[in-house]
């Protein structure tokens, strides 16, 4: 069961976990990954998350389907926020349920690597001095993280 949502509002991790595992009796492992906004040493007032509305849900659903095809899951929920997010607030949630722990952990890891490099979202900094900061640069490390899954089909 795949659930994908793009929303401006915060999400309730516990409520999503309850939804995902309701009635399931073969879930032995539940992994939640929550991505949060850091304050970047006090420099950051908020992150602005721009997205491509027409494509974001489709693309994240494609990534979720790949994740489900690749790992033995009992359920997968992905929620990505857009709009303004303050330090300490949530940006993204990945929730993976499986019979066995490695599948759930790896699914969350895989999902996040591909979200970072394929989901059409862009972050811009709003600074505590009241100015508009830069667009966040894509990280080469994220590309390398995503490339791991092509190099090593079993890891």
């Amino acid at each position: 069961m795949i659930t994908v949502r793009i929303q401006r509002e915060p999400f309730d991790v516990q409520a999503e976990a309850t939804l995902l595992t309701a009635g399931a009796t073969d879930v032995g492992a539940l992994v939640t990954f929550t991505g949060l906004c850091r304050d970047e040493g006090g420099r950051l007032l908020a992150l602005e998350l721009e997205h491509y509305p027409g494509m974001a849900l489709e693309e994240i659903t494609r990534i979720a389907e790949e994740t489900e095809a690749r790992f033995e899951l009992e359920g997968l929920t992905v929620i990505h926020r857009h709009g303004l997010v303050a330090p300490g607030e949530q940006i993204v949630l990945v929730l993976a349920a499986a019979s066995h722990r490695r599948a759930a952990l790896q699914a969350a890891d895989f999902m996040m690597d591909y979200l970072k490099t394929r989901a059409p979202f862009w972050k811009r900094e709003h600074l505590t001095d009241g100015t508009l900061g830069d667009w966040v640069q894509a990280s080469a490390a994220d590309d390398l993280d995503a490339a791991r899954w092509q190099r090593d089909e079993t890891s």
Partner: protein
Amino acid sequence: MKLLYFAWVRERIGKAEEEIAIPAGIETVSDLIAWLAARDEGGARAFNEPEVIRAAIDRTHASHDMPLAGAQEVAFFPPMTGG
């Protein structure tokens, strides 16, 4: 054909979207980028480093050598920084 721009590509070209009639001889994503870069100042600013630009054709990621034939919506944007 509908063109969409996001993040700093949108800011530099100065618009979020536009409708264009695709000119003769423009066959791939790469051709379209070169044409936009040559069209005006905003295009030059947005596409002066074409190698960093990402594209999507009809809401699916597309490499620069992808043909545009049949495309209804082409989007240009920087590398993604979501998640």
